[in-house]
């Protein structure tokens, strides 16, 4: 397939339009985070979110969170119709402030984790997960 200069330009524009699509506004995921933080300032660092770069199926995506010293960690799927995923509250006998689970992602999107640290401060991190759509429904 040959690409002329004009084609390439148009291709770039088309691609740009396409990349915008996945981050269209769906639900107020930031409101979900605000409800968790109470509007407090959210910093960075000390929180690890592990998620696959590419998920073979959005129905079962393994994710892990780890924030030493956290009281609670919330996971939010920014592109889901219901952005709330889970909140892990760590008790006195938690062996670490880490947990893994499997989640549903409605499509390619950013997954956000927010941790409430023991001192009441908040940190946040995020990871983009590409969700592939299979060719075979069978």
């Amino acid at each position, binding site marked *: 397939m040959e690409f002329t200069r004009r084609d390439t330009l*148009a291709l770039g524009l*088309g691609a740009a339009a396409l990349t915008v699509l996945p981050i269209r506004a769906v639900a107020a995921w930031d409101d979900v985070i605000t409800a968790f933080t109470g509007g407090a300032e959210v910093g960075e660092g000390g929180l690890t979110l592990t998620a696959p770069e590419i998920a073979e199926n959005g129905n079962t995506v393994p994710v892990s969170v780890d924030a030493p010293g956290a009281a609670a960690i919330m996971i939010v799927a920014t592109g889901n119709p219901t952005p709330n995923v889970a909140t892990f509250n760590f008790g006195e006998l938690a062996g670490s402030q880490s947990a893994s689970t499997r989640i549903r992602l409605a499509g390619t999107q950013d997954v956000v984790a927010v941790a409430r640290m023991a001192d009441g401060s908040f940190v946040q991190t995020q990871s983009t997960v590409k969700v592939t759509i299979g*060719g*075979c429904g*069978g």
Partner: protein
Amino acid sequence: MKIKTLSAIAAMLVSTPFVAVADEADKDANLVVNGEVELVTRAPAPAHLEGAVDEVISGWLFRTSETQSLQMDDFDNPGMIFVDQAMDDWGTAVGSEGKSCADCHGAVEDSMEGVRAVYPKWNETAGEVRTVAQMINECRTDRMGADALGYTSAAMARMEALISMQSRGMPVNVAIDGPAQETWEWGKELYYTRTGQLQMSCANCHEDNYGNNIRADHLSQGQINGFPVYRLKNAKLTTPHGRFKGCVRDTRAETYGTGSDAFVALELYVASRGNGLSVEGVSVRN
């Protein structure tokens, strides 16, 4: 915008996820379950595949490392929930005879060892090739006085899973000669027969194009050594005939029926293409 540009965008759309997914698949991984059960995921192709493929490859090798890892620990494998349930079923009396599977067969670990590896198999009494699912239903209707299970029902899938687990690690070794040969030949014919509006045969995807992508799906060889399979897509067990039906439907054809003679023949043939690969018990796929 010229048509060529549109098709260029389409080409990019199509190709981008393909490359990404293909890169993710870990083709050199070794499948060891619970750190102790080593499964053969690559084997020299059986003699009858000469000229078609040189090596037979488990579908596990076509999956991403995240999906692969789900099968490497029986606790991480969600399919094991259903094996647990089937273990309960095994010891539960059903039907008018008040018998359970265990009443005749004893411990499943002993009586069902190696069974899955050699099925579908010629049944002398019936005078035809029978699948494990058919044998389960024969027990239910003829010996337990119970209703037959739906051929691809959840209850059937989990009992097949329990039985399959008792052959985990053994090489698939279905007989294709002798009385089974005629059925096998028919299965082979079906494998290469194009169906549906898309005019595609099993071979078009799983022999000619394994390792390539169809949209974002990374095509495997379509081996069934891992069946029943826990699919992330629908979060439950899928049986061989359930999967065949899905594939044939995707060619936009009226499918053969699950449990039909045609699918039994196809199951024997497809199983024979995996002779030499390990029975995986309950696999996990996308």
